[in-house]
C-alpha cells in the first residue's frame, strides 16, 4: 500500500503550525486570496506598460496560467478538489476515467489522440453552488450529452460536464486530452486542466513512462506539489511486477514527483471495454528485489473511485494551493523571474538608449546661411518704422529719389538677366537641400541603429525605415516646407531681436550705418537632436556653432563700429578676442541673428520629423528604459513581497498527504499517517473553509 510521505518540516514545526491555524488561518487565506488577485491585476498592468520591451507573453507562462487557471478561481471561500486523469495518447486515460465514472462517460477508441476536449464529472448540486465557468476560465462549457462529443475536433476549447451523484460533493473528476500527440492544442487543454487540478491520476505505460513529453508535463505537476496517483496501465502481469518499480523510480527521479499511491492495471482489452479492469494497489517505495512473489496473496483489485473519495481533501487542497503559489513566487520560474527579465531588458534598453542619445545626434554642417540681404532689408524696414519727425521725412525723400533714379537701371538689368530671384526664395531652395541631407543622414543613423541596436529597438526602427515611409515623409516635409512664410518668420525674429538689441545698445545708428557693408557668409553648423533621453551629452550639443573662417570674412568687410555694446549682444566667450572692437560686435550680432534664425528652422524640422516619422518612439523608449522605477513595477514587487510574507505565515501547515485508506487491507501503513490524521482533525475545527471538505471525505 501507499506509505504516507512525510514532509521533513512537519515534525519540527508541528507546534507552530497548530498555533498558527488555531484562529488566524481563515483570515490569512482571505488575505492570500486578495493578495493573489492583486498580484494578478498589477502584473497585467505592468505587462501593458512594458510593451516596448517585448516581454514574454503572460499567456503561456506557467506561473501566470497558474494564477489565472488555478489560484484566482480557486482561492475563493468554498473549497473543492479537482482530480484529473492525465497521460500520453492512447494509453487508456479514458478507460481509467470511465472506471472512475462507472459508465462510458468518455468515449474510448483504439486510435490515438481520440479525446480532444476534457470531460468533467461534477458532484450533484455543485453547479448550483458554483459558477463552473469561473472554475475553468479557459473552456467553453457544455453539458454532457453523448460520449462522442469530446472526440470532435474544434478550435474552441470545450469542456463537457456531467453530474455524477456518486461523487463526494466537493470532488470534480476530469478526463483530459493527451499530452504528447501531434495535436498540440490537446497539450494546451491538458495543461489547463493540470493547473486547476489538485490530484492527478497519472496513467503511464512501459512504452511511455520515460518519454520526453510525459516527463516535461509531470515535472511541472511535481513543482506545483500536486497529489499524484500513478496508474501503470497495460502491464504484462506477473512479468512486469519486477519492472514497474524500476519504471516508477526513473519516472520519479526525472519528474520530482512523489506518488501518493500506485496502481497496476493489466493489458486486458476485453476487461477494459467492459469496465472491469482490475486496479491493483502497490506500496511505494518498495524494498529492493521486488518481484511477483512480493505481492501478498490476498491482493485484490481496488475501487479507484472509493480510494479517491477517501483522499484527505483539506491537506491536498492546502498543499496544492501552496504549491502553486510557490511556483508563482518561485525565483527561477515565477513572477520574480519575469520581473528580473523585465529589469534586464529595461537595463539593456537603457544602455542602448544612452549610446543612441549621444550618437544619434545629427551634425548638419551645411545648413544654408540665412540671406543677409533679407536681414538688412528687414532691419531697414524695422528701423524706418521707428524713425520720427524730420529724420523720417528726409529718409523717405531720399528713398523715393533713390528709387526713381535706379528704376531704369533695374529695368534694364531685369530685361537682360531676367527677374532676379528673391534671396529668400534662394534660401528656401537651399534649405530644402539641407533638409534632404538631414533626412538622408537621419535615415542612415536609423539604419545604423536598426543594425547595431538591440532586439527591442530594432523592430521599432525597422518599421520607421520602410521605403514607403520615406516617400511619405518627403512629401509631407515638402508640403510643409512650401507653406512656410519665411518673410513673416524673419520679420518676427528681427522684431524680437532688434527690440532686445535696441534696449542694450545706444549706438544703434552706428550699427545701422555699418549694416550696408555687411555681406557675411557664415555657415551655421547645427545639430538635430532626435533622441533626447536626458541620458547623454545630447542636451548640450544643441547650440549651433558658426564656422570660424566664415566669421573672419565678416570681420574684414565690416568697418569699425562704435564699441561698447559687444558683450551684451555677443555673450559668447568664443568671440571675445574680437569683441572689443566694433567689427567684432557687428560680427557677433550677425552670428546671433543667424544662429537664432537657424535654430528656429532646425527646431521646426526636428518637430516635424518627430511628428511625422518617429512619433512617440523616443518617449516610449525612455519610459521603457525607466521601467523598474515605474509605479507599476514597484507595485508588482510589493505584491510579490506581500504574498511571500503571507505564505510564510501558513507555510508550516502539514504538507502531506493524501491518506487513501485507513483500512489495512494492504500492509505498510506507518505511524506517520496516523499522526497526520490527528493534525487534520485539529485544524479542521478552526477552518470553516475546509470543514466541508473534511466532512465530506469522512462521510463518504
Amino acid at each position, binding site marked *: 500500500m501507499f506509505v504516507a510521505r512525510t514532509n521533513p518540516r512537519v515534525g519540527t514545526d508541528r507546534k507552530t503550525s497548530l498555533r498558527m491555524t488555531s484562529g488566524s488561518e481563515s483570515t490569512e487565506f482571505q488575505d492570500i486570496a486578495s493578495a493573489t488577485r492583486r498580484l494578478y491585476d498589477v502584473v497585467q498592468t505592468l505587462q501593458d506598460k512594458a510593451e516596448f520591451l517585448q516581454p514574454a507573453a503572460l499567456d503561456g507562462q506557467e506561473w501566470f496560467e497558474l494564477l489565472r487557471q488555478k489560484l484566482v478561481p480557486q482561492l475563493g471561500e468554498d473549497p473543492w478538489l479537482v482530480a484529473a486523469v492525465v497521460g500520453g495518447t*492512447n494509453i487508456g486515460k479514458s478507460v481509467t476515467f470511465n472506471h472512475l465514472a462507472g459508465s462510458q462517460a468518455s468515449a474510448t477508441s483504439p486510435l*490515438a489522440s481520440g479525446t480532444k476536449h476534457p470531460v468533467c464529472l461534477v458532484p450533484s448540486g455543485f453547479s448550483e453552488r458554483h459558477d463552473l465557468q469561473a472554475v475553468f476560465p479557459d473552456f467553453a462549457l457544455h453539458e454532457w450529452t453523448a460520449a462522442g462529443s469530446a472526440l470532435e475536433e474544434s478550435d474552441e476549447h470545450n469542456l463537457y460536464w456531467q453530474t455524477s451523484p456518486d461523487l463526494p460533493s466537493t470532488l470534480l473528476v476530469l478526463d483530459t486530452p493527451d499530452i504528447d500527440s*501531434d495535436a498540440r492544442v490537446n497539450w494546451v487543454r491538458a495543461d489547463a486542466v493540470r493547473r486547476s487540478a489538485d490530484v492527478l491520476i497519472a496513467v503511464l*505505460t512501459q512504452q*511511455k513512462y520515460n518519454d520526453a513529453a510525459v516527463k516535461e508535463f509531470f515535472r511541472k505537476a511535481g513543482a506545483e506539489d500536486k497529489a499524484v496517483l500513478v496508474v501503470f496501465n497495460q502491464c504484462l502481469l506477473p512479468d512486469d511486477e519486477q519492472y514497474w518499480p524500476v519504471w516508477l523510480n526513473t519516472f520519479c527521479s526525472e519528474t520530482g514527483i512523489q506518488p501518493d499511491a500506485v496502481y497496476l492495471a493489466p493489458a486486458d482489452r476485453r476487461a477494459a471495454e467492459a469496465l472491469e479492469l482490475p486496479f491493483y494497489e502497490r506500496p511505494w517505495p518498495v524494498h529492493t528485489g521486488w518481484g511477483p512473489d512480493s505481492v501478498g496473496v490476498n491482493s485484490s483489485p481496488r475501487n479507484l473511485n472509493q480510494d479517491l473519495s477517501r483522499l484527505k481533501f483539506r491537506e491536498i487542497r492546502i498543499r496544492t494551493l501552496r504549491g502553486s503559489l510557490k511556483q508563482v513566487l518561485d525565483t527561477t520560474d515565477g513572477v520574480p523571474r519575469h520581473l528580473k527579465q523585465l529589469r534586464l531588458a529595461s537595463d539593456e534598453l537603457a544602455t542602448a538608449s544612452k549610446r543612441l542619445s549621444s550618437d544619434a545626434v545629427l551634425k548638419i554642417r551645411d545648413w544654408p546661411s540665412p540671406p543677409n540681404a533679407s536681414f538688412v532689408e528687414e532691419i531697414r524696414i524695422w528701423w524706418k518704422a521707428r524713425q520720427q519727425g524730420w529724420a523720417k521725412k528726409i529718409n523717405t525723400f531720399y528713398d523715393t529719389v533713390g528709387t526713381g533714379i535706379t528704376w531704369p537701371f533695374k529695368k534694364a538689368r531685369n530685361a537682360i538677366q531676367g527677374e532676379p530671384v528673391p534671396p529668400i526664395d534662394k534660401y528656401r531652395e537651399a534649405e*530644402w537641400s539641407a533638409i*534632404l541631407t538631414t533626412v538622408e543622414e537621419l535615415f542612415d543613423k536609423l539604419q545604423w541603429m536598426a543594425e547595431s541596436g538591440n532586439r527591442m529597438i530594432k523592430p521599432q526602427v525597422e518599421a520607421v*525605415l520602410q521605403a514607403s515611409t520615406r516617400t511619405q515623409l518627403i512629401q509631407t516635409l515638402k508640403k510643409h516646407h512650401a507653406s512656410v512664410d519665411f518673410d513673416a518668420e524673419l520679420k518676427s525674429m528681427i522684431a524680437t531681436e532688434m527690440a532686445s538689441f535696441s534696449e542694450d545698445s545706444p549706438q544703434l545708428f552706428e550699427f545701422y550705418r555699418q549694416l550696408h557693408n555687411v555681406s557675411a557668409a557664415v555657415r551655421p553648423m547645427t545639430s538635430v537632436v532626435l533622441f533626447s533621453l536626458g541620458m547623454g551629452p545630447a542636451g548640450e550639443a544643441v547650440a549651433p556653432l558658426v564656422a570660424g573662417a566664415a566669421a573672419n570674412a565678416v570681420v574684414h568687410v565690416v568697418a569699425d563700429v562704435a564699441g561698447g555694446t559687444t558683450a551684451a549682444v555677443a555673450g559668447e566667450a568664443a568671440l571675445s578676442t574680437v569683441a572689443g572692437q566694433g567689427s567684432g560686435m557687428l560680427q557677433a550680432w550677425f552670428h546671433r541673428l543667424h544662429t537664432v534664425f537657424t535654430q528656429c528652422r532646425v527646431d521646426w524640422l526636428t518637430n516635424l520629423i518627430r511628428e511625422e516619422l518617429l512619433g512617440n518612439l523616443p518617449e516610449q523608449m525612455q519610459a521603457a528604459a525607466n521601467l523598474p522605477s515605474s509605479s507599476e513595477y514597484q507595485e508588482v514587487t510589493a505584491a510579490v513581497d506581500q504574498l511571500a510574507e503571507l505564505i510564510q505565515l501558513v507555510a508550516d501547515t502539514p504538507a502531506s498527504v493524501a491518506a487513501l485508506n485507513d483500512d489495512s487491507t494492504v500492509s505498510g501503513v506507518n505511524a506517520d499517517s496516523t499522526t497526520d490524521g490527528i493534525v487534520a482533525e485539529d485544524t479542521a475545527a478552526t477552518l470553516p473553509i475546509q470543514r466541508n471538505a473534511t466532512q465530506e471525505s469522512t462521510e463518504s
Partner: protein
Amino acid sequence: MTAHEQLEHLALLAEVDDLTDRLSRWIDDCPDWQTAHRARALLKRLLERVHTLRFRLETPLVVATFGGTGTGKSSLVNALVGREVTTVGRERPTTTTPILLVHPDIEPEALELDLSAFNVKRVDAPVLRDIVVIDCPDPDTSETSATGSNLAILREIVPHCDVLLYTSTQQKYKNARVIDELIDVASGCRLVFVQTHAELDSDIRDDWKKFLSSDYEVPEMFFVDSVKALQEQQGDHRPSGDFGRLLDLLSSQLGAARRVEIRRANLIDLLQEALAHCRSDYDANLPKVQELIETLEQQRVRLKETLTGQLCDELLVNRTLWERRLLSSVTDMWGFSPFSAVLRLYNGLGAFIASFTFFRARTSAQMALIGAVQGARWVKSRAKENEAESTLERLSTFGINDQQLQESRLVISGHIHTAGIDYAMSDDRRDLSELRRQAAALEGEFLGDAGRAVDEVIEELAAASGGWLTRVWYEVLFLAYIVFLLGRVGYNFFWSSFLGPIVSGSNSHEPLLEVDFYIPALIFLVIWSGFLVTTFTWGLRRGLTSRIQKFAQSMAESRLLHGLFPNLEETCRYVVRDDQQLTTLLDQTTSFRRHIADPSVGFLGGRREEPAES
C-alpha cells in the same frame, strides 16, 4: 546487367550530373541580393553532400530503424537477422549506443561512417548480403538535443542512411516528437512503415496511413510481431505473415541493382526540397524587389515628365527662335528668289541683334532652336559644342536639380534597404556628382531625341506654310512693288526725261527723279517687305502651339532607356532573371523526381514534394 540496361543506367547518371552542373552554375552566378545569397549558401552545402554521396553510390544501402522508445526497434532488428544481436528491454530507453550490423563480406570502412560511434557487429544473415542495418536510439526520451543524448546521436546517424525502417505502435503513432523528427530526417531517405507489437495491439494502420498521408507517400504498411518472427527464424522457419513479406522485400528490393536508383531518388528529394525552400524564400522577398523596380520606373517617368514639361515651356516662350528656325528652313527650301532673299535678310538681322542680347544660348531649348543664319548644319554642330560645354548648367535649367536627385536617392536607398539588395550608394552623403553625371547623360539622351523631333516639326511646319502657292503669292506681291518701282524709274529715265521729248519734239524734258523720290521709294520698299515678312511669319506661327503640344506628347510617349541608377536597375533585372532561373531549376528537379523517383513503385515511401490536401 545487359548492355541496354547499362546504357539506361548511364543515361540516368548523366541526367543527375547535368542537374547538379546546372545547379553549380546557378550558384556561381549570383546577383547582389541577400535572399539569393542565402539560397546559394544552402544549396552549396547540399551540393557538397551530393558529391560525397556520389562516391558512395556503389556501397551497400544503409538501413536504419527509426521510431519512439518501446516501439520495438531492437526486436525488429533481431527478428530481421534471426538472432539476438541487440538488447531488447522493458526499461526505457534500452538502446543508447547505435548498433551497426554488417555482413562479414562487407568492409564497414567503405561506408564512410564514423565507426567509433557504433557498436559494430558482423552477422552472417541472408538479409545483410546487400545492406547494412543500424539499430538507432530513439528520438523521444531526450528533452533536449544536448551532446550525448539519444536525439543527438540519432541526428548524427540519419544523414548517412538511405532507408529508414519507421516503427511505431498503437500508443505511439501520433507522438509529436517522433513526427517532428521524422519531418526533419525524411527528405533524403526512403521510408518503410512498420507497426510492431502485433501480438498486443490493434491494427491502426488505416488511421496511421491517413495521418501520414498529408506529408508522406505511404505505399504500404507492415503489421509485424517481431517476437514471433524471431522464434520462427530461430526455429529455422520462414517468418510468416507481414514480417515474412517485409523480410523478402528488404532482401530483394534493396539489392545491388536498386542501390543507385534509391540513392539517386534520395538525392533528388533533397535537391528538390532545398530548391522548394529557396523558392518560398524568394517568393517572400521578391515583392520588395518588385516594389523597388516599380519605384525606379516611376522615377524614370517622373524625370521624363520634368524634362518634357520644361522643354515645352521653353519652346513656347522662345517664339522668336522658332520663327528664325522656321524662316531659315523655308528659305533653304525655296532656294534663291527675291522674297526669300528678303526673308534671309530679315532673319540674319534678327540673329545679329539677338546675338548682342544673348551672348550665348541660355537654355537647351534656345540652343536647339537658335541661329538659322548659317543654316541647319551649322546649328547642329554648334549645338554639339554647346552641349559638351555646359551640361551641368543645362541640368539646373532643365529642372533636374540637386534636390530632386537627393529625393530620388533617399527613396531608392530606402527601397534597397527593404529589398535587401547589396548596392552601395556613394559613401559621402553630400557627393551628388555621380548622380549628376547620370542625370546629364540622361538629359543628353533626351535632348538627342528632342533635337531630332524638333527638326522634324520644323521641316513639317516649313513644308506646310512654305508651299508652292504661298510662295508664288508672296513672290508676286513682293515683285509687284519692285516691278512698279522699276517701271516708274524706267519710264522716267528712258521716256519722259529723254526719249519722249525727242520723239514728240517737245522741249519739255521732265527732270530725272531725284533723292526725294528714291528715299520714299526705299521707305515704302522696306515697309512693303516688312509687311509681307510679318504676314508670312504670322502665317508660320499659326498652329505652332498645338504643334508643340503634340510634340510634347510624342516625347512623353517615348521611353528613357535608363534612369538615374543604371547599375541598380541592372541588378534588379538580374534578380528577376535569377528568380526565373530558380523556377526553371525547381520545375526541372520536380519533374525529374517524378520521373525517376516515383515513390508509388514498390514498398518504399518518402516525403511528398508538397503537402497533399487533407
